[in-house]
């Protein structure tokens, strides 16, 4: 079975959905037969590359809300994140363009390190409030993941995996994924959003039965 997950690194519901999906997968009897592939999705591809801006300032500018209103909006997500063990830091976090991060995830995926990369970058972005618009930070994280520093730097300086990032976004649209997280099992079942663990568990069972029929 193959589970493709469209997700953006800056997406707080994606990380929550990831944790819920992982819990369902841990409980799934046939988890050893499941391959997870991380697909790129950019929530805001128009955001300038190479710029890191305090996330609450960026949200206030984008939505027209006051700082207090933004604080209230993010507080609700922080509360749900805490329920799955994630301590989000929107106070110090940065809004960034995630195109280059996704290119590094593709590099990692080509080395069998996709899941590790996606987890590391999401944790860096949402929990550790690292500035992922900074090349040195990205290379440092790439090395932690197990990638070669020189190779990561070469990818960041060029346009490797750019086509894959764009194709992932186009594929999501073809499959009806207008938001993230978006999970697709065996290109047969689609699950949108940070659904409860039970929904993911039921989806895995259904997909397994369908694949075994």
């Amino acid at each position, binding site marked *: 079975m193959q589970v493709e997950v469209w997700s*953006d690194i800056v*997406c*707080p*519901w*994606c990380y*929550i*959905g990831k944790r819920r999906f992982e819990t369902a997968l841990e409980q799934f009897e046939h988890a050893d037969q499941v391959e997870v592939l991380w697909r790129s999705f950019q*929530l*805001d591809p128009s*955001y300038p590359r190479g710029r890191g801006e305090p996330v609450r300032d960026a*949200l206030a500018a*984008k*939505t027209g809300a006051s700082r207090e209103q*933004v604080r209230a*909006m*993010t507080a609700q*997500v922080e509360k*749900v994140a805490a329920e799955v063990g994630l301590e989000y830091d929107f106070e110090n976090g940065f809004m960034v363009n995630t195109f280059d991060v996704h290119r590094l995830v593709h590099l990692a995926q080509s080395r069998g390190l996709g899941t590790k990369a996606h987890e590391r970058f999401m944790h860096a972005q949402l929990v550790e409030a690292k500035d992922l618009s900074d090349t040195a930070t990205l290379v440092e994280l790439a090395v932690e993941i197990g990638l070669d520093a020189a190779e990561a730097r070469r990818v960041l300086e060029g346009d490797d995996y750019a086509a894959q990032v764009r194709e992932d976004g186009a594929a999501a649209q*073809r*499959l*009806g994924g*207008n*938001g*993230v*997280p*978006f999970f*697709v099992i065996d*290109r*047969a*079942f*689609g*699950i*949108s*959003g*940070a*659904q*409860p663990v039970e*929904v993911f568990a*039921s*989806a895995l069972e*259904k997909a397994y*039965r369908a694949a075994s029929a």
Partner: protein
Amino acid sequence: MSVSSPEPGAEPREADRPAEEELPLDAVTGLVSLGTEDAPACSDGTCW
């Protein structure tokens, strides 16, 4: 007339199994959608 119970541990007979629910297939995407439509998600650059 008596109705026999299955042996403990026996596979349920086909007629005893709950019917698989009908899952709607999206003709455009080719996917069967699972879960609720109101699950929290991010789209168009916003999540809030």
